[in-house]
């Protein structure tokens, strides 16, 4: 029935769109890496909205490696002087593209749409280059989630840990009862996802901001960071031996099937639970990563528009920006994808409990300053630095490196330009 409700909502959006826009046709070519499953469905919604406005949607889908291939393609298209109308780009990369002088200015659209009041300042800051909007946010993912199978914890007689100090005890109990304590996939970005949550949990948001966003050398070399690595090493102990190279969703399956107790992963993991017919609060729990209660590491997907010469194309970009920002799209898209809307005024009634909690924490943390960008998902520092730090983290996780050594390496990696 959910889909039926979406459809009526969508129909309303379409009629609204038809009423407000003239049927001047523009072709928009949109580069994205949402090519399959629920993500592809979400993009299809956007396509429908654009078609309703009389624009032609030219799909330009390139997936693989979390957008790696798409970025390669995008660069060659820009170098060839033939950029797509819009592309999926996020975080500090928006600034890097802005500096190349190839992005279109969306200020007028943003002003007409009142984006400054609709978007929380943390989000709008990411979307702007030199004070002007150049990107449109689609969603907000929360990264510091821990997915728990309560049945497994019950059987093992373990309590869901709320601090890192409680974690080893719970994990030991799970292991003794014959379960895998932590379901994990050994790919660099997944290692990094756990690490950033550990840093946040051990050091708190202020420390996280200093170390992972400002790359402050004293913070990076501090005893707190050593402790974070120690904790990270503890997590490593509770991972099964076949974790290397495993896709994240196979790890989620382990939690769903009751083979493993918990997984540290962003809110996209929810899609796997939903697809398996599991209910939040009953079959699985979404809780904060130990020690990060109320803190929020965000990962925002967004689209940037490239400068175009024809007025048709500009009209298409305006339509696209408006369509992405429309409450109906933000709602449908995020219901499909497991994230929450980027604009604050979307009603959350249709969302599940995990998303509601995420939304509440998002709003609250944006006021207390415990809303921080996810470094593992390229929201905090430029790609080169992120990569260098990721190398250290994943090497630490996959070797016998001591925490002392890791801290030294981390500090020097953070200097990568």
């Amino acid at each position, binding site marked *: 029935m959910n889909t039926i409700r979406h459809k009526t909502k969508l129909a309303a959006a379409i009629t609204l769109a038809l009423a407000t826009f003239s049927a001047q046709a523009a072709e928009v*070519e949109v580069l994205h*890496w*949402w*090519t*399959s*499953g*629920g*993500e*592809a*469905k979400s*993009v*299809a919604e956007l*396509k429908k909205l654009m078609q309703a406005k009389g624009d032609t*949607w*030219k*799909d*330009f*889908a*390139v*997936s*693989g*490696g*979390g957008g790696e*291939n798409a970025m*390669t*393609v995008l*660069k*060659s*298209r820009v*170098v*060839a*002087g*033939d950029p*797509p109308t819009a592309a999926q780009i996020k975080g500090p990369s928006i600034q890097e593209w802005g500096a190349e002088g190839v992005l279109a200015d969306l200020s007028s659209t943003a002003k007409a749409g009142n984006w400054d009041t609709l978007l929380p300042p943390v989000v709008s800051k990411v979307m702007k280059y030199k004070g002007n909007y150049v990107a449109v946010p689609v969603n907000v993912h929360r990264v510091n989630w821990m997915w728990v199978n309560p049945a497994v914890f019950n059987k093992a007689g373990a309590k869901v840990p709320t601090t890192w100090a409680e974690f080893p005890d719970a994990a030991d109990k799970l292991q003794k009862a014959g379960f895998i304590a932590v379901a994990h996939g050994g790919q660099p970005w997944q290692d990094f996802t756990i690490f950033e949550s550990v840093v946040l949990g051990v050091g708190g948001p202020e420390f996280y901001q200093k170390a992972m966003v400002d790359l402050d050398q004293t913070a990076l070399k501090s005893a707190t960071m050593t402790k974070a690595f120690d904790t990270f090493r503890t997590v490593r102990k509770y991972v099964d031996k076949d974790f290397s190279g495993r*896709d994240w*969703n*196979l790890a989620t*399956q382990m939690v769903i*099937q009751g083979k493993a107790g918990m997984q540290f992963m962003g809110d*996209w993991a929810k*899609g*796997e639970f939903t*697809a398996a017919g599991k209910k939040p609060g009953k079959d699985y729990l979404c809780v904060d990563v130990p020690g990060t209660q109320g803190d929020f590491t965000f990962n925002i997907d967004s689209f940037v528009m490239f400068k175009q010469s024809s007025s048709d194309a500009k009209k298409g970009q305006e339509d696209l920006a408006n369509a992405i920002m429309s409450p109906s799209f933000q709602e449908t898209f995020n219901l499909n*994808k*497991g994230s929450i809307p980027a604009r604050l005024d979307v009603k959350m009634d249709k969302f599940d409990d995990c998303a509601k909690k995420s939304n509440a924490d998002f709003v609250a943390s944006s006021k207390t300053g415990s809303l921080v960008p996810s470094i593992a998902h390229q929201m905090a520092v430029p790609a080169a630095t992120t990569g260098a730090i990721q190398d250290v983290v994943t090497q630490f996780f996959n070797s016998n490196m001591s925490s002392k050594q890791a801290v030294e390496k981390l500090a020097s990696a953070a200097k990568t330009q």
Partner: protein
Amino acid sequence: MADTSNTQTQGASRFGRYVIYTLLGLVCLYYLLPLFIMVSTSLKTLDDIRSGNLIALPNEVTFEPWKEAWGSACIGVRCEGMSVYFWNSFRFVVPAVLISTLVGAFNGYVLTMWRFKGSDIFFSALMIGCFIPFQVVLLPMARTLGELGISNSIAGLIFVHVVYGVAFTTLFFRNYYVTIPDELVKAAKIDGAGFLRIFWRIILPISTPIIVVSIIWQFTQIWNDFLFGVVFSSGDRQPVTVALNNLVNTSTGVIGYNVDMAAAIIAALPTLFVYIVAGKYFVRGLTAGSVKG
């Protein structure tokens, strides 16, 4: 060669033959194992894959994944399966293979029958050049295609594949023509036959085996190429390997391994067909001279 070994084995024990067959059979298993897993997975239901052993036989055979992969799987916002992209690939692979083979044939002919000062250096330079990592050429090539006005088009894709395929086709033809006795061409030259005429009347008629080799090699390389395909094409024109990649890679959402495997086999059908049907000519073509320096 085969004859001699046979006379030899007549004296040898039967045991030896068994050892040979066993060894060959074992190696066959090593080669077939991945294909077996792909085929058996493509015939399983998703539940079967989730609950059972990944390398076991399917509990119940289903052809749904194949139907879905061919006609209805969603790739991007289009839910028409691999079929569209399958034909896309043919549209640039066939011209690219033919052009690069023709150019290679002419190059090989010149480099062996019409040598000039520096032709060996040119050949070496071409050989070393083919070691350039293709990732390096993406950006400057994109720029070039943009200036030529064939960026993001079938013509552009053909151009790129010909440019980076010619080194290999030249190698094949050059090594083949080197084995042809010079007297043949010399006699024709004395008779007054020209460059094109000799090529057309003498060289081309005896080139069939090596043409087959060149076509098979180029077809496999270009059909399976992902990097150029993904960078120099877009949207509806993407080749089958890019579609496969888009289908297989999902950052969120359930992975349908059965559909993935079916799609992979579908994507490989033309090259499999070429190898199995033309495999005999392939070895024959190689025998005919390509492997002789």
